């Protein structure tokens, strides 16, 4: 069996948008990749697949699943074939995300200060009042450069006609950027020739861009501010990423117990005494940050840190309270925000979203449950969601019941068949659904997005859920010129 057979046998779904193939023809940007596949035997590809797994394992790029006290370490599945995005597509995505983040930043500033958008009735006040992530405690706090969303991972999907949609805004502690970077490093070893010929834009300057932005936030006018990365600790599933980023930026990786507050300033405890901390890139959720204000049982946080934040002696990235802007119910209003704050039309559209607290919309959704995906507004990672097309009647009635009880906690969207890309699975090329998470950084100089991002793949046949907790994997993502 040679690899020509693989390509001939690549069967895409009829009503789906496949990124590589259209009408049995290979799309232009994928032609070099297909050429490379032709030049390799299936055994070669198998070897590359195995090598990739070993590279991830040996470097300890694993997440730990704990059962009893024996930790089992698994790798995040990686598909060896890259997903390709053209320069034109990328320019469109880039503009759309820049626009969206600009609006979201303005919204966060507004909502924690004047609340003009509520007064002008663009967004219903009760929607914000009922949002668990809106934190009254931090209203009125001024943040450096008025930037709230320093680091974001906005999820995009591509529908049946190839249009890019925004699926969700992750503005709190988005993860996965280390996989974007490591995936590229692994591809460099798997397909060195192809990579150098294909004019792929580089992603590896992400940690440097992030480091520069973080340094620029320092409230103290010193030439070398102390920037730290705050992690919940070794048991966090993203701990690898925390050590990776700290290493890449050359900053200290701290836990809550390494820090203390004295006279509204943050210090870290070093062998040479206390050292003042200026900027904290925190990977701890809001509710665990400060036991004095939020969850009193949190041992991950630092008592009094929000007091220091209010005084402006320390900068936090991302800002506290961003959850109000990526709440799945508030998401539906982002196009309105763009019009309101920027007086522009949204470049990247939302997926149509039905508010379950709206009676008419709820009725419509209940009548069309099989075409809908229902999501909880306060959950992510593929948890707490119902895919109407595959759910049993029992599951559906359970969800309907839950929705009627607390309608604010749910939204519904029509199921969009995500675009597919070829994956090397069981020695064949098989189409699998993907999304795209580009990583955007907001600094004083504007929004920068490294060209690429994390392409997440639903490895199960037919599945539309790409989250790693639900059997998802990832691919290297190329933006080519």
């Amino acid at each position: 069996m040679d690899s020509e057979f693989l390509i001939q046998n690549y069967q895409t779904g009829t009503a789906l948008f496949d990124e590589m193939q259209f009408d049995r023809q290979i799309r232009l940007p994928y032609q070099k990749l297909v050429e490379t596949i032709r030049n390799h035997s299936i055994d070669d590809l198998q070897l590359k697949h195995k090598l990739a797994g070993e590279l991830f394992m040996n470097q300890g790029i694993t997440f730990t699943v704990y059962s009893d006290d024996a930790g089992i370490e698994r790798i995040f599945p990686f598909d060896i074939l890259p997903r390709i995005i053209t320069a034109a597509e990328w320019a469109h995505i880039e503009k759309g995300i820049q626009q969206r983040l600009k609006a979201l930043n303005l919204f966060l500033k507004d909502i924690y200060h004047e609340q003009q958008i509520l007064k002008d009735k663009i967004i219903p006040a009760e929607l914000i009042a009922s949002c668990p992530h809106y934190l009254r405690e931090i209203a009125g706090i001024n943040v450096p450069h008025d930037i709230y969303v320093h680091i974001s991972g906005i999820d995009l999907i591509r529908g049946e006609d190839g249009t890019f949609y925004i699926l969700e805004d992750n503005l709190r502690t988005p993860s996965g950027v280390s996989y974007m970077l490591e995936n590229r490093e692994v591809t460099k070893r798997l397909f060195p020739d192809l990579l150098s010929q294909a004019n792929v834009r580089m992603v590896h300057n992400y940690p440097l861009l992030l480091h520069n932005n973080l340094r620029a936030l320092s409230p103290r006018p010193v030439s070398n501010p102390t920037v730290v990365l705050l992690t919940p600790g070794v048991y966090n599933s993203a701990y690898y990423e925390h050590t990776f980023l700290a290493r890449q930026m050359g900053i200290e990786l701290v836990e809550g117990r390494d820090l203390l507050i004295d006279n509204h300033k943050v210090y870290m405890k070093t062998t040479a005494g206390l050292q003042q901390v200026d900027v904290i890139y925190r990977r701890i959720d809001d509710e665990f940050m400060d036991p004095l204000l939020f969850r009193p049982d949190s041992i991950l946080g630092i008592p009094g840190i929000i007091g220091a934040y209010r005084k402006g002696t320390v900068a936090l990235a991302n800002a506290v309270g961003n959850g109000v802007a990526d709440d799945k119910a508030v998401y539906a209003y982002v196009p309105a925000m763009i019009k309101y704050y920027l007086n522009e039309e949204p470049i990247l559209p939302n997926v149509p979203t039905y508010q379950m607290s709206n009676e008419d919309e709820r009725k419509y959704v209940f009548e069309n449950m099989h075409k809908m995906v229902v999501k909880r507004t306060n959950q992510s990672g593929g948890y707490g969601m119902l895919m109407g097309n595959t759910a049993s009647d029992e599951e559906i009635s359970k969800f309907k019941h839950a929705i009627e009880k607390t309608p604010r906690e749910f939204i519904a969207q029509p199921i969009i068949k995500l675009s597919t890309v070829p994956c090397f699975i069981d020695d064949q090329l098989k189409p699998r659904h993907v999304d795209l998470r580009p990583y955007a950084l907001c600094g004083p100089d504007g929004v920068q997005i490294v060209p690429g991002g994390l392409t997440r793949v639903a490895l199960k046949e037919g599945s539309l859920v790409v989250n790693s907790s639900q059997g998802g994997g990832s691919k290297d993502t190329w933006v080519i010129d």
Partner: protein
Amino acid sequence: MLSRVADSMFWMNRYIERAEGLLRVLLTNYVLSLDKGPYGVHSWKPVLELFGNLSAEEINQIEYSSTDTLKYLVINRNNHNSLRSLINKARENARGMQDHITKEVWEEVNQLYHTVNHPGLEKKLSGADALPTIGNLLKQCLTYVGVTDTTMPRGMGWDFMNIGRYIERGVLTSDITFKQFQQINFDLDDEKDILFWRNLLLSLSGYELHMKYYSSNATNSNVLHQAVFNQYFPRSVVYSLERMEKYLMNVLDENDPPQKQMMLREFGRIHSRVKYADETSIKQVTLQYFLQESKQDMLKFSHVLGQQFFSYA
């Protein structure tokens, strides 16, 4: 350097040093247990007392069974000093400061961890597999020492790692020496031949040095000299203290804490008590007291060090 990181550096090395010590004792005793020596049937009692927390009765039950003893000392989770517990704790420390140790060191600790937690290990602790298994584990610990030495950057982290290693080594040597002398009631004049001391000397990997270095017949005194005072013997108490002093000076210079003078005095006192002792002065306070005190001194100093540099929780 973060106090927590310094603490982890110190303890990662301490735990692995203890693991290495344990393994060498196990290897020596296992080999000796196969022979019927001039001093009766081999008992694991002293080793079980050193590295376990069993009651006298429980020790009586397994002291003549090499397999049961090995299982208890290598893989038992309830024993805080079993090899598995030690390596797990070392890795726990390494995990929390991965950004401060080299990739090579992390991989070595990781590999040790996977070896001692392998479900197949229990079966390999009896019969013909036991000896090569213990030998292989010991080799992995030694590889760790080599990898840290060739890849870790010098500086504060390295200094704390080494203080941990040499405190542990000094304590271990006094402990093992104590156990052996206990069997002859700490009587330095009671002449035992080299066969009696083989266990101790091999456990400290100092048998060959002993044969080369000492020629007089006063074997008891010679063994004590080697274990405590011999500056050429890398496991002697005095050698451990000398190394500690070097790294302690670095750490004090780099951090310059207000308690620097106090710590220097405290360490100087401990160091000179061993360095300037001789057999006569030891006999005055009894050997038992001398060995116990040296160990207590080092443990106390470890505590002072912790208060000064590691208090973060």
